[in-house]
């Protein structure tokens, strides 16, 4: 469904990816994990063609993104859905209109059908009763569920989740987790979940990739990743503060810097 082959990408001379390879298989939940700042969100931006790789190939639905123009990319995006970390709901529209937004923009369906479609999706995320609320009146978890309803309203083939578990209370987190699993099983949607919440991902992911240093450090099922003897993988999976990923950001010698500060 999504293939990333030998992708290189740099921001301001700082390499983010150096030879990234990754495959997302149809109908499965693929987890992409990694410490903060390893380019997880950048990878999503590459897959959704918001940015282009400086080298290598990104193929979505078998199409090479580099060969597509603006219309081609928009056509491709209509087959995708994405859930943003903060929901990214349109603040000037209520919940109903937010979910109806893609339908109204891309189809000429009669109002009665739009209504049925939107209410069905809102029912699926348990928020049919909140249809008339404005985004500002929703809690973080509710906003994310509305955004999920909006992401699935056009029946996408691929659904991308950007850090879906961040900042949620245990109940909301459980709800989102169950919804991701449900969307995948009931609607046959291929899911890509980008997150650093190892425990949450382990219960839902079919395949996992661990990003580190611009490449895939490890791949396999969550159980295989946990059993890995690579120090970098172990550090991430166990949440150890020090290891190959150092606790300290690169800095000059501590003692020398303190002494230098004392000099007039």
């Amino acid at each position, binding site marked *: 469904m999504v293939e990333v082959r030998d992708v290189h990408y740099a921001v301001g001379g700082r390499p983010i990816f150096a030879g990234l390879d990754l495959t997302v298989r149809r109908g499965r939940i693929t987890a992409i994990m990694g410490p903060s700042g390893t380019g997880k969100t950048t990878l999503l931006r590459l897959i*959704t063609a*918001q940015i282009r790789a400086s080298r290598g190939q990104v193929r979505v639905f078998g199409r090479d993104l580099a060969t597509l123009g603006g219309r081609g990319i*928009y*056509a491709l*995006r*209509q087959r*995708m*859905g*994405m859930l*943003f*970390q*903060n929901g*990214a*709901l*349109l*603040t000037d529209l209520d919940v109903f209109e937010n979910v109806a*937004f*893609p339908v109204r*923009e*891309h189809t000429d369906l009669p109002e009665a059908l739009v209504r049925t479609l939107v209410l069905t999706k809102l029912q699926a995320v348990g928020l049919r009763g909140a249809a008339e609320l404005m985004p500002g009146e929703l809690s973080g978890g509710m906003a994310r569920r509305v*955004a999920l309803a*909006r992401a699935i309203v*056009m029946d996408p083939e691929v659904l991308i989740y950007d850090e879906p578990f961040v900042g949620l209370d245990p109940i909301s987190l459980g709800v989102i987790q169950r919804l991701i699993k449900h969307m995948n099983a009931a609607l046959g949607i291929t899911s890509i979940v980008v997150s650093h919440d190892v425990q949450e991902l382990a219960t839902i992911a079919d395949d996992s990739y661990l990003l580190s240093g611009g490449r895939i450090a490890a791949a396999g099922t969550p159980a295989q990743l946990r059993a890995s003897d690579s120090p970098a993988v172990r550090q991430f999976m166990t949440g150890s503060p020090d290891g190959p990923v150092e606790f300290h950001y690169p800095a000059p010698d501590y003692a020398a810097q303190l002494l230098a500060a004392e000099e007039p």
Partner: protein
Amino acid sequence: MTTATRDGVLLEGLRRLGAVVIFLVQLLMQCVPALARPRLIVYQIYNAGARSLIIIMLSGLFVGMVLGLQGYDLLQRFGSVEALGIAAALGLLKELAPVITALLFAGRAGTALTSEIGLMRATDQLTAMEIMAVNPLRYVAAPRFLGGVIAMPLLTAIFSIVGLYGAQLIGVQLMGVDRGVFWSQMQGAVGLHNIYEGVMKSVVFGVACSLIAVHEGYHAEPTAAGVGMATTRTVVASSVLTLLLDYVLTAAFL
């Protein structure tokens, strides 16, 4: 300033100007499909226009009153207070109404547009639209731009009318200029071409101020400080450009 720095500043200025022109072309291309959603444009006319009415009307009244007072003081030295109506009408229609409306628009509606679009950028709303295969230029930028362009001449007209009432209030009611003379002189001397000049100016200012507001919001850095800076740039750039264009247009109409 060294030659190298001067060239750098010049190049940067040209680059920015080029970016704004490219943005304008992209925006205009999206204005046609945006017309298919008149509801969005009407809402933006309400947002930029109707919500600016109080500040425009209050300012128009005071500017007209000052014009009446200053005009009367000046004209009575030459014994020609009958010309107060002409002076007030020409001053308002040709200069003060379009310019002051544009400056107030930049401060009231322009900043609101920039911060609204900038915050939409900061909260990923524009990116979300892109991912939903909806061009944010068509859905967000074009209706706001068109709303501003349509609202500006309407606000200018209201400014002129209220301003004339203010000038009349002081000149006729307070200072005792003859009411019939005040209006008839104005009617005789102010032609359609004077009104046309004011309308043309207000349309040009409407395009300039709305373009700057939308452009700055759309390209604001997605942080609190970035949106704040973009808002400031909107006011500064719109005000300076309005005054510069005013000179160019005045010279062109002479």
